């Protein structure tokens, strides 16, 4: 059973505009959420995280929003750059060990 879902397999955005990647989860006990970025033939790299006690975390061009009542989080990238083109994985943790990953959203930023 998939507890973390990314319903959009792909997203295309023009350079300079905002990219919004969405993620839904089913387990209300998750206490930490993370976003990873993955290029082909490489391992996922950590991007940004948010604790369940917060509703927003910002790091440069990247902002993660958490809506616990809707069990939804989103990653905003502003402004989007061609180098942001990658697969983005949403992940959730319960108790600090294993991560539950979504299936990923492939972002393409076009010039």
């Amino acid at each position, binding site marked *: 059973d998939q507890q973390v879902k990314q319903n959009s397999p792909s997203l295309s955005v023009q350079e300079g505009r905002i990219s919004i990647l969405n993620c839904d989860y089913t387990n209300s006990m998750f206490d930490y959420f993370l976003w990873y970025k993955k290029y082909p033939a490489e391992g*996922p790299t950590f991007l940004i*995280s948010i604790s369940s006690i917060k509703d927003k975390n910002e790091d440069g061009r990247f902002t993660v929003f958490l809506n616990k009542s809707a069990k939804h989080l989103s990653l905003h990238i502003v402004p989007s750059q061609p180098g942001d083109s990658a697969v983005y994985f949403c992940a959730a943790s319960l108790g600090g*060990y294993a991560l539950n990953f979504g299936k990923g959203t492939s972002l393409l930023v076009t010039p």
Partner: protein
Amino acid sequence: DTAVSQTPKYLVTQMGNDKSIKCEQNLGHDTMYWYKQDSKKFLKIMFSYNNKELIINETVPNRFSPKSPDKAHLNLHINSLELGDSAVYFCASSGDGFNYGYTFGSGTRLTVV
């Protein structure tokens, strides 16, 4: 100076063989993991070790056996390989807290023919 390194990067082998994938981290992390990314692109936890002790063992066939000789190494041995074992296997490590997330290796693409 790779933080989490896995070898080999590619592995092609026949059904029924036994193979190992090695993982080493130089980050001083206490916890190491094996994840499997299948053909549907799901990343799923297989095992987790904390200071050489097994703490997570998801529903994985007994043919998969992790071994942690020390906290910087977590190897994965697979017996009697099957076609369905074909996947990308990622090793990862983490320290205290989740502020910086896991650090993943670059993956080992295993193809069983």
